[in-house]
């Protein structure tokens, strides 16, 4: 199995993709080189491995010669011995090659800054989450995504009402007019994402949306250098239902918007079918930090392109009740004092 690294022409160390410069940079001699110089000439390189044959695989680090054990889905990582980037090209070539990649736009410092900002001033957060040492453990990961392009043909029926009121002094009259409507139409969708990594929670990845596909470039393994990456282990078929649900919702929303001028509108039926579906395979950049607290793992993620930050924080119950008690006593003091001053007591 081929484990590739990109050698610095100046000093021979492992080059990494620098998100700030959008070029290849050597972490040792600081030399900078254009990405194109290291791109693959031939589209399929390296031996292919059928997905799901092994849970783990052995790879050979070209820099230090170590034998690395990595998970079956790992496509890019750091050598645990010499810290140099290792790219397992077989995982991202041939049939497994992604169509597109959005390179990282925000670097590690930006990720740490966003983290610090998100965690700042949270009274209820346990202290362990904000230690600088821990924030340093944030990792840049390329997450595999399936992107769906499709045209939805939707139709729906509705029941609507309009009312009119008037009075003649002795009675109040209400006239209710009932209507029905039919709508059929076409809505185009492109690049609707579904994450293809089993170990990345779907709701976490969905919370990171939207990734701007305008910045996507044709895939080349060079972009992975210096980051972690996994190839997909959830198939496009498995992701289809989730995508279809979101598309259906939007299709019905679009049709409903065209029923205007009524007081009440109620959908009585509808149908959506998807046509001309095209599926692309892409890698999207995500900064990930895992924190363990009281035996539970908390994962935070930041969109490596837009900087959007998501993650559920645990609540320190002790801190919560302490604050609640403080608020309570403070409130009591204020209320009692006010009652006293106003002479209500």
């Amino acid at each position: 199995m081929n484990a590739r690294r990109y050698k610095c022409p100046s000093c021979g160390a492992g080059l990494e993709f620098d998100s700030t410069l959008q070029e290849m940079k050597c972490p040792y001699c600081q030399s900078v080189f254009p990405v194109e110089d290291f791109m693959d000439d031939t589209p399929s390189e390296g031996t292919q491995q059928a997905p799901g044959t092994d849970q783990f695989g052995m790879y050979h680090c070209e820099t230090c010669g170590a034998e690395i054990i990595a998970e079956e889905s790992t496509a890019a990582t750091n050598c645990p011995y010499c810290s140099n980037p290792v790219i397992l090209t077989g995982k991202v070539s041939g049939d497994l090659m992604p169509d597109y990649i959005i390179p990282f736009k925000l670097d590690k410092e930006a990720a740490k800054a966003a983290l610090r900002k998100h965690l700042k001033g949270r009274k209820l957060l346990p202290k362990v989450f904000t230690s600088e040492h821990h924030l340093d453990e944030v990792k840049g990961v390329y997450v595999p995504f399936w992107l769906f392009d499709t045209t939805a043909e939707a139709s729906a029926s509705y029941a609507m009402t309009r009312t009119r009121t008037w009075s003649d002094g002795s009675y109040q009259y209400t006239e209710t007019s009932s209507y029905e409507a039919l709508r059929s139409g076409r809505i185009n969708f492109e690049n609707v994402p579904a994450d293809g990594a089993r170990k990345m929670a779907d709701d976490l990845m969905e919370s990171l949306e939207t990734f701007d596909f305008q910045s996507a470039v044709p895939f080349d393994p060079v972009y992975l250098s210096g980051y972690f990456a996994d190839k997909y282990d959830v198939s496009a078929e498995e992701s289809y239902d989730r995508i279809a649900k979101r598309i259906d919702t939007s299709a019905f929303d679009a049709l409903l918007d065209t029923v205007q001028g009524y007081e009440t509108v109620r959908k009585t039926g509808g149908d959506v079918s998807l046509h001309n579906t095209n599926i692309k395979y892409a890698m999207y950049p995500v900064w990930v930090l895992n924190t363990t607290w009281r035996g539970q793992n908390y994962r935070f993620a930041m969109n490596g392109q837009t900087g959007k930050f998501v993650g559920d924080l645990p609540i320190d119950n002790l801190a919560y009740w302490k604050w609640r008690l403080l608020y309570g006593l403070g409130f009591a003091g204020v209320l009692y004092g006010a009652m006293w001053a106003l002479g209500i007591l």
Partner: protein
Amino acid sequence: MKRKFSVTLLSLILLLAAAFLLPKAAFAESRSGKMPLIVDNAGVLSSSEISALTEKAQEISRTYACDTAVVFVRGLGGYSSIISFTDDFFDYNGYGYNGTKDGVMLLVDVKGREYWISTSGFGIDAFTDAGQLYLKDQFVSYLSDGDWSGAADSFLSGCDRFLRQARSGQPYDVGNMPRNNFNLALFLGDAGLGILLGGLPLHKARKEMKNVKEQRDAEAYIYGKAPVLTRCDDRLLGRNVTRVPIPRDTGSGSGGGGGSTIHVGSSGNTHGGSGGRF
């Protein structure tokens, strides 16, 4: 011999009787022949209670130049209204300081389980409607419990406070009610409420701790005109008219802002007052 003995016995009895009557006479003297301030025609107070209460009532009346009296009766004896009974009891028994007849009287009908506070002269100003409501709260529970001396004592204590306040020129009324000492129960109640309400700002902080949510739709990924309609029909099904009669109503309202409600008793004297059942 026999005659001397009976004379001695008689004088002894008379002496004993005088000993009993003397304290009463002494009190009567200080009130110059008027009715006592504490009257127990229902037989609900012990003699020690009567004397203790009488001493307190006299102290108050003297200090503030305003008679404070408590009367216990068993039944209203022919009177249909406790209001007129109390007013008359006050007026026809010579209660009240000076020509203005300054005084306040609590009359309790133990049998009918009813009470009435009657005010007169300065008492009308000192014990406003709002003030009387406050005063009632202090002693009614004692009446319900049958603690007659407790009720009388509580009433007198209240009168003491009210008269002191009234003599200072600003009788207790709406917006100027007596202030209690530190009420621990109330403070703890406030604290409990505060802890409950403290959940609100913290609830916001709690919610902000979570921002992971799955996407509801794919709206961000729509491109082009959406939707491109291939069919658009609206159809009227029918109309329906209902009617509701407009109700006729009359409104009435009254305001409130303090002061004392007054009426004129049978004696021609003006009284204020209020009461209730227990």
